[in-house]
């Protein structure tokens, strides 16, 4: 059976005075899909979510749910629940009453309300704490309570506004799985906004990268990671080094960029020869070689800083003409390097992505507000 789109956005736009929060956003979310909207702070993520939920009226554009237009409906009639990063558990109610809130205000049968609340609290393993008040719960429990409350309304669409942000790292990972499991078990369509690329990579069926109110790229996590649409995404999802220059040559299986004293081989491009371009390579794709080793895409440099991260080592090297390159390498290979050592950076051509120079320059492009 072909899946019909669960949510469809058509040309949503919103301005706050001189800030563009949403710029002609169109998006289709399939039934049961988990979409992560990834973007830096101030990209308009929360505004987008609130427009969909009906909490902020858009300036223009349409919103459809299951093919029905909903943007003129009040929030309570749109069939979706908004889950905020502060959980917004009602502090004057117990865990039980919080969970029962949705069914109760919808005026459902009392026994059905109780049944739903019990079921959802069991699902998030909070039934034993049902008489507690929110301020007696730990961060993770609050998060699970908020989730149970949302699920008890029996809606099929969840709008998640950085729900894992306030949790510590280990709990975040745990709840990540729990959230993914619950939504897929219950067949829920989820729209999850976050600035955390790790969440995007691990949880999403598809990722939409949002910047300055625009969706810059939409695709599976691997696509976003491996084939970023523009330098910003390349740099924001993971971290990247960039070289500017002009296209030196193009061929079927590769291209070459000349600039900053090097000729770098990169992936193929359809940019014409001589046009301005840049090449980006993620820090973990730079390989360090001991000493000076001549070769294609080899750049001699000196180690200036080394930072032990545990599993990885982050190394900053300085090329002969003073350019700093960031390298992440597994600890097993990285421990051998120390400050002042002469090394060679090998930039694997198949990992070097070539982009046209962005309109406002590379520096502005890479800025994360």
């Amino acid at each position, binding site marked *: 059976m072909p899946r019909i789109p669960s949510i469809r956005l058509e040309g949503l736009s919103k301005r706050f005075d001189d800030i563009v929060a949403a710029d002609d956003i169109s998006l289709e979310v399939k039934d049961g899909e988990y979409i992560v909207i990834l973007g830096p702070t101030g990209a308009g993520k929360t505004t987008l979510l*609130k427009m969909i*939920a*009906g*909490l902020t009226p858009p300036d223009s554009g349409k919103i459809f749910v299951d093919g029905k237009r909903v943007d003129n409906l*009040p*929030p*309570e009639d*749109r069939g*979706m*629940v*908004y*889950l*905020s990063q*502060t959980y*917004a558990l*009602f*502090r*004057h109610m117990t865990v039980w009453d919080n969970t029962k*809130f*949705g069914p109760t*205000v*919808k*005026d459902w049968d009392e026994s059905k309300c109780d049944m739903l609340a019990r079921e959802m609290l069991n699902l998030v393993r909070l039934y034993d704490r049902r008489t507690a008040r929110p301020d007696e719960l730990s961060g993770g429990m609050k998060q699970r309570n908020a989730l149970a*409350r*949302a699920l008890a*309304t029996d809606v099929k669409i969840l*709008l998640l506004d950085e729900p894992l942000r306030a949790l510590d790292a280990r709990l975040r990972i745990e709840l990540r799985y729990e959230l993914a499991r619950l939504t897929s078990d219950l067949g829920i369509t989820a729209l999850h906004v976050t600035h955390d690329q790790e969440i995007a990579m691990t949880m999403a069926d598809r990722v939409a990268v949002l910047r300055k109110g625009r969706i810059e790229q939409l695709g599976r996590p691997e696509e976003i990671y491996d084939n970023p649409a523009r330098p910003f995404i390349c740099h924001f999802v993971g971290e990247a080094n960039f070289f500017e220059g002009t296209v030196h040559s193009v061929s079927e299986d590769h291209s070459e960029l000349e600039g900053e004293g090097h000729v770098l081989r990169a992936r193929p491009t359809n940019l014409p020869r001589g046009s301005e371009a840049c090449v980006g390579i993620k820090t973990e794709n730079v390989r360090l070689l001991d000493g000076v080793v001549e070769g294609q895409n080899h750049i001699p440099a000196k180690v200036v800083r080394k930072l032990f991260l545990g599993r990885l080592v982050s190394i900053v090297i300085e090329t002969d003409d003073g350019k700093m390159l960031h390298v992440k390498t597994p600890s097993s290979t990285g421990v051998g390097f120390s400050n002042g050592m002469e090394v060679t950076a090998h930039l694997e051509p198949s990992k070097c992505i070539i982009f046209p120079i962005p309109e406002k320059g590379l520096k502005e492009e890479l800025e994360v507000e």
Partner: protein
Amino acid sequence: MNLGRRALNFVSGRSVSKAWYAFIILFFLLIVLLPTLYVMSYAFTGWDDIQTQVFGNKKTTNLYWEKNNDPDFARYEVHFSTTSGFAPNSSTLVLTIDTKGGDVSLEKARSSAFTMVSGIPAGDRYYARIRVVDSSGLWTDSNQLSDNMDAQYTSPEPVELLSLWVQGDIVTLNWTVSEDDDFSSYEVYASNDSQFVPGSATLVDTIAIPTNHSTAVTVALDEVHYFRVRVVEDSGLWTDSNLEGIGVNMPDPADGSSPAPMVLTRSFSREVLSQVTGALTLSFVVAIIATLIDLVVGLPIAWVLVRKEFRGKSYVNTLIDMPLAIPTAAMGFSAALFWGITPGIDKPWGAISFTNSAFVLLLLLQIVFSFPYMVRSLAAILEEIDINYEVAARACGASRLTAARTVTLPLFRSGIVTGAILCLAKTLSETGGVMAALSTIQSREYNATALIGTMKSASLFNDALVPALAFVSIVLIVLSIILLIIVKLIVTKVKLPMRKVWTNLEKKLSKGAFPKLKDAGAFFFLTFVVLVPAFFIFGFVATAEPSQTADWGAFWSSLGLSFAIAGVVTTIVLLLGIPMGILIARSRKKKAAGVLDVLVNIPFIVPTAALGFSLGLFWTTQPFLPVTADVFLIVMAHVAFTYPFVVRNVVGALESLDTTYEDTARTLGAKPLQVFRRVMFPMMKASVLAGAIMTFTRSLGETGATLAVSPKAITAPVYIVELIRSGSFYQAGLASILLIMVSFIIVLVMRRLTTRGGA
């Protein structure tokens, strides 16, 4: 789908909620704001009246006399003449104080033993007598007083003709002894006509010795005889007693006795303008000085309350808040007994009784009233200032005083602004306490609000006072607003010498006995300047001589009226203030909301007496809605000045309440009304209840607005003021204590309910 849910859908609908908000704003503008400022329109339309009245060469005369307790009491007549020793008649009558055809209760008319008469040419000297008339038309005159208090124009106090006794054709008269210094003689007058005016034709006996207060007169048989006894002074001035009649050889006449004589105690006059400017000056000077003193003394107390832990701290906190809950009329009376020299009674046990200056008394009084506002505002801000700033400054080597002065104080400005504005607004607005205190020491001076209260009472019997009243109200409103703006500018703009550091001096002052002395001084002030005078009344009643039985029925009915009004006012203010608060805090149109926010606070800084006058003027002059029922007017006035309490509290609570709660509740399926009832309201309940308590107690204790709207309705504080005015101190004391206890119990109960509900 059931009916309830359908109704909910309907009410939550967009167009309905828009109409509802439009109603809320309209209500505020038309019912609260417009009436509050309506008196300003007088400045345009009635300016000529005001000018001739206030600036013209006219004077007002204030007259006070002893309340008459005759069971048959019908009216007072105020008589004026330019000749000393005049006998009142229809041509000397200028004013009648009666029930106005039933508009005013008889009790109210009886206790209006005071009047102002305006429009008298300033150059002339006037002499006044008050005549009390009973229901059968018999009358008794008071002594004569002049608006010049010289003894030579003051006639002796009247004696009371006590009894007549017949034996054959001889009638024996008995009267009270005259204590006049210039006593010359008693003259006994007799006539067959109960309406006779004593004169040479009716003189039957003359007695030159003051202690001979009895005589026997031979009269004709088978007739009714009426007698009066006149006290004559050396200067020739005289005062007649009451009239007594008796039948000789026939039954006694039905209307045999006129009311007991009373004494015109004070009379003075001033040009209207000087009275008005004097009152305004007194108000503003007292307000400014009291605020400065509050600031200086309030700072250390707030500091101690926030930064130090000590045993009994919670008691100190409660004690400081107490004056907020207690009706000021009761407190003003209490403090006036403590500080002031009270004519007519012995110095109460334990009282200081050192001043009869209105200025000094008002200053002390206003400090009592306004002190809690200052301490609370300062403490609230101090609570929010992180102590780490001070710790850091001290770690850098600053002494404790230097650290506090240079680091914490500058962070403190908003607290000082709030405190100063609250204190000024409170002191400028206070009426009940001031009137109670000024009446207690029988002051001849008024501040602006007491002048409004007094003039309004008097204007009930004398329309000519209205332009002067409008003038005082307009000036008071305008000046208050200007003053508050200036305060805000001064405190936020003027720089204190924060940079300069007097290391050694401040180090010395930070050590040893000085800080302790400062704390002790502040607490001494709190105890003996604020608390003891405020509660002195308990001691007074316990030690004073109990007087004749009080009219408790009148007190209880006044208390009932006060409660009913406070209850209705609180309900209205809650119903209409909460939506307004939500509108201001949650509106998407930030600028419009900001304007509304400022407008809502206007009734708060307009002195309530001026507000009440303005409001009364508004409602009684509207052709489309000629509502003049007093209780309605009072409720409207109280709604106007308490409205900001609830709105402010709701706005404050909502501003600290994240909108995500509402957003989440909406997406969980709740209609706007459900969101309000189940989520917003429970979360801001404590603030709303605090606002409700404030509204209730303020309405219960309000005198100024009540009097200025309608001098006819007797609420509990007005009743107390009137008891004091008519000199019934003991009853006033008992009534004050009852009012204090009742308000206190209410606050305690409400606070208990609040904390339980909020837990």
